[in-house]
């Protein structure tokens, strides 16, 4: 509950207090995601194991010993039946708010784009992504041609589509959002480490080559990134 309240007030607070606070320490959304995953998994595992044990125990314990045996459970009194509805309801509700508060906090990490984020425009086509890097550098990527982003530099992708709905997903950074004609959407990533096994993939069904609409995405040191961008600019 405390978490829930602090998430609520945090939402108001940060919009008032300016962005200095998180200029200092940028969130890494994919790391927050992983922590939230662990929290949620623990939560549902505890519920699942308790319920499973209860079920297995009853399924063994209350086997009939003769064909005409009948159950011996008593009918609940009115007070009991209300209690057996309200108590579990409040437990489930409390857990829901706990999870919602946690989810809300992580959501804020995902949706608040840092001021210093580098902007890359993405346009979806059947069946490839086109990127526009700072300085108007156009990059067309395919299954073999990676796009680059600099390590340590938050990047925001501002996206739209020219034909049908696609989705821009980067499993490595635990994020995706649909790309739609007539609408603009965004995601941002915080590549704190260099990597060369990231994948961008279309995640919304878009026809024939939907499962080939993909390209690698590498996070590389700034110098390497600059060289790549210069090469792209020259080619473009």
């Amino acid at each position: 509950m405390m978490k829930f309240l602090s998430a609520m007030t945090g939402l108001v607070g940060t919009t008032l207090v300016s962005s200095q606070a998180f200029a200092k320490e940028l969130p890494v959304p994919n790391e927050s995601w992983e922590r939230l995953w662990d929290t949620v998994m623990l939560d549902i595992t505890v519920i699942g194991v308790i319920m499973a044990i209860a079920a297995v125990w009853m399924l063994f314990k209350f086997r009939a010993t003769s064909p005409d045996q009948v159950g011996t459970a008593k009918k609940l009194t009115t007070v009991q039946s209300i209690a057996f509805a309200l108590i579990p309801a409040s437990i489930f509700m409390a857990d829901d708010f706990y999870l919602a508060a946690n989810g809300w906090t992580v959501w804020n990490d995902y949706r608040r784009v840092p001021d210093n984020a580098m902007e890359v425009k993405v346009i979806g086509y059947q069946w490839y992504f086109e990127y526009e890097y700072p300085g108007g550098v156009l990059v067309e990527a395919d299954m073999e041609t990676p796009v680059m982003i600099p390590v340590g530099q938050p990047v925001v992708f501002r996206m739209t589509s020219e034909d049908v709905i696609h989705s821009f997903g980067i499993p490595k950074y635990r994020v995706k959002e649909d790309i739609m004609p007539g609408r603009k959407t965004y995601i941002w990533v915080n590549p704190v480490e260099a990597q060369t096994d990231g994948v961008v993939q279309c995640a919304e069904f878009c026809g024939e080559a939907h499962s080939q609409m993909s390209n690698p995405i590498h996070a590389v040191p700034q110098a390497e990134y600059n060289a790549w961008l210069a090469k792209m600019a020259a080619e473009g």
Partner: protein
Amino acid sequence: MSTPTTTASHSAAPAWKEWLLTTDHKRIGVLYLVGSMAAFGVAGLMALIIRFEQMELGMQFISSGTEYNGYLYFHGAAMILAFLIPGLTGFAANYFLPLMIGARDVAFPRINAFSVWLFYFAIVLALLSFIVPDGPDIMWTGYPPYSVTSASNTSMYVFTVHLLGFSSILGAVNFLVTVIYMRAPGMGWNQLNIFVWTTVAAFVIQLIFIPVLAAAVTLLLFDKYLGTHFYDPSAGGDVLLYQNLFWFYSHPAVYVIFLPAVGILFDIMATMAKNRVFNYKAAVYAGIWGIVGIAGIVWVHHLYIAGMPDWIRLGHMVTTLLISVPVGILTLSLWGTLYKGAITYNTAMMYAASCLYLILLGGLTGIPLAIPSMTLHLSETSYVHAHFHFIMALFSAFALFAGIYYWFPKMTGRFADGPMATISFWLNFVGVNVTFWPLFIIGKEGMPRRYWDYEMFKDVEVLGRSFQEFHFIATIGAGVIAIGMLLQFINFIASAFNGKPAPTNPWNSKSLEWTHTASPPGPGNFGDTDVIVDENWSPYEYTKG
């Protein structure tokens, strides 16, 4: 109270004509069963093809992505619209709801017959998609603009939805009137079988929400063939309008499947445990009706990555998580029904027990998906695919199979239990775990759904293994299910003709369909004497001998 009568023969007309012209709710129920099982067979075959195609990288069985998409379209649409909904609200409700409330038929028997034939037209129309050269490839969700710009035949999808929707609305009106006006004299609301309550709830949902789906797909038809621009942003339309309308129906539609499945479980478990339903009123009013109440305000969780405003996504996170409250209460009653029972085991009860596992696994894995920040990554992955198969596909399908075993003696006068039934149960149960667990694991690492190839992930490893190895295991699992299901169908057909003869009430149930009718019940269900119950009667009262 009347005593069971023998099966009176129907008229002297030839059998095919009797079935074609029948208005008897039991025969209509059987027609639904046959149609939905046929749909399950064909859609299951499609599942095998797509599963085997995904087994390895590269193309194996298909010749184009569009061909694969056509199979996937058929699998999804047929499983939901032609197998589960007609299996549960068509077959089970038609055959057993009137018996359970002591009615001699439904309120409008001819409209009921019209409904089932609309359903058959819809199946034929859907099957035609394999014959026409431009069969739909737009997935059962049919999102524009793809469904408008695609070269495939969107109208077949739209008209199939129209036919099934029309059929369901007629059924809904029919059954609501039946339950309200045709209960046996003396039967109060708190004496209804849980299955009756869940079916009523499902029909209320159908009645409220189907028109919205019908509108959504009709606008799709207009956009594609009449040149309107409802979903076309270049002319002032909006692509998200469709998704909102579609899920405004299709989320509640999962309860149209879920609720009657739960109802069947309650009836089987109370009967096999010879026990009262734990906290009946809470299950009905807080559980079942709580779900109906909340069904219409959670649909945006299907649009968490569709760029909806942040405040809507967070609002629907809260409402979606709150579904756990009515579902939790209902689950508790299901569990409590076993407490201090006297459980006997048979195939129906084994399926019912496995459903307890499936509801836990499928339900709890939905909780991460209720949280938008989790879904920003999990959406459209095979994690989602595994989740909805466990909770919707497998849970409800297993509940339906449980129901078929449970009511088999009523419908045929014979048992379907036996070694074949036990073996096929275990094959199916093991098979679904082997098939769908691996998909949770690779889904979390990003394996997308609706992909026939996953070349881009060839270097990604989970638990030291490639995605392909997990797909391989999943495909083996699907093969095991296929064998299990095949044995099961053979068993059903063989048992219907040669099964061990059963007494009229083999499980010693207290429910009216067992205590007051012959097996199978004759025309008019209850012989010459109307069913009357007193205020102490309950379908779950075992302690009073």
